[in-house]
């Protein structure tokens, strides 16, 4: 009898552990497989995109905010996205559905460059 109880306890513990691991595992899988509304921010300040390179997961929406006194644009060098001109405090957002590297620049001040890395 005692042996049965020990066995059941052990089995239950193992099962519980397995369930916990499975749940933990599946929540990270969810972020990878579905656009789960993850957000990232890039600030435009002093003619610089900050951070200059940002790495995000597939499905993330990146929002650029212009904090300069001068308008800027956010334009993909490969033609993937292109913002209208953004004046002070205006924003531009783009959702990255495909993994890859997306270099971009400000078409008004082309020395300003940045990169979005989507994994």
């Amino acid at each position: 009898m005692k042996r049965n109880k020990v066995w059941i306890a052990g089995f239950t513990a193992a099962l519980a552990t397995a369930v916990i691991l499975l749940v933990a595992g599946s929540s990270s899988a969810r972020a990878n497989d579905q656009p789960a509304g993850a957000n990232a921010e890039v600030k435009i300040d002093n003619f610089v995109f900050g951070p200059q390179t940002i790495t995000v997961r597939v499905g993330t929406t990146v929002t650029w905010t212009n904090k300069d006194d001068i308008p800027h644009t956010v334009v993909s060098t490969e033609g993937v996205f292109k913002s209208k001109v953004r004046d002070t405090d205006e924003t531009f957002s783009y959702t990255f559905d495909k993994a890859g590297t997306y270099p971009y620049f400000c078409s008004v001040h082309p020395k300003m460059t940045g990169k979005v890395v989507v994994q």
Partner: protein
Amino acid sequence: MTEQNHDRIDQKLQDLNNDGVDRRGFLKCMAWAGTGLVWTLSGGIPVSRAFAKGGKSSGKGGDFSFVQISDSHIGFNKPANPDVTATLQTAINKINALPHKPDFIIHTGDLTQLSKPSEFDTLDQALKGATAKQIYFVPGEHDMLSDNGDEYLHRFGKDTKGCGWYSFDHKGVHFVGLVNVANLKAGGMGSLGHDQLEWLEGDLKGRSASTPVVLFAHIPLWTVYPDWGWGTDDSEQALSYVKRFGSVTVLNGHIHQVMQKIEGKVSFHTAMSTAFPQPAPGTAPSAGPMKVPADQLQRVLGITDVNYLVSGRSLAVVDSTLADSASPTSRNGAGLVEADSVSA
């Protein structure tokens, strides 16, 4: 003029002719010539002799003047200048008050802040008050913000090619308006592009080398400060086409401060803005609008008076700020030097 101003302007003059005469010494020579207000460069040789011979007044067959203004940024309303239309109006009043009437005005771009129709309209309205009725434009990058510059071209593109380049002749001087703010590439500076360069080569071909040439474009056609994009990637090719001419003047804007350089027979000049100043290269985190105390604003905005003298086949370029008042004895307003402060 204060010592401080002398030093500031001395720093901005990037080239000396290696003849042992510095800028202050040069101006003393000019004072002797009876002007003290206008300095002229023709292949690096001061043309004071021309002044002594021909006297100060224009109207001597073929002599004329025009004014360069730049970077009015109509639509800008941030602390660096909450009312750019008012400072543009001050500039226009100053032009209208010049003792000699300019034949025309050249605006070297960034007419507007955001290429909005209402901004272009406001500019038009203000310029209607200029007594000089002929105004030539080239666009700045702020004028290209609406679908490849459609709004700008719609208003100012008549008789131009491509994104708005063109040339014209006036009393024997050949003027070329260039566009170096279109199709800019990531990481680059200003750009003229192959089509425009090809057109420019053809436009200049066959013209006599004694024809004075004036090129005007928004972004400087020489490399002022590459980190801030203050230069044009393919300007070397354009400048190679004008190398053979005896007198070449390049007028630019974009950097919102006066900077000058002489290279052989080519004189480069950038104008102040009528809207807001920008920092000197590398002196601030970025090239953005520079705030100054409100009572100083008029001293860092200005116009450029350009005088062409047939006798010297040269153009004299004189900058003055909106704070300088035209005095009855001066020819072109305050200019760079006040006559009574320069002794021979």
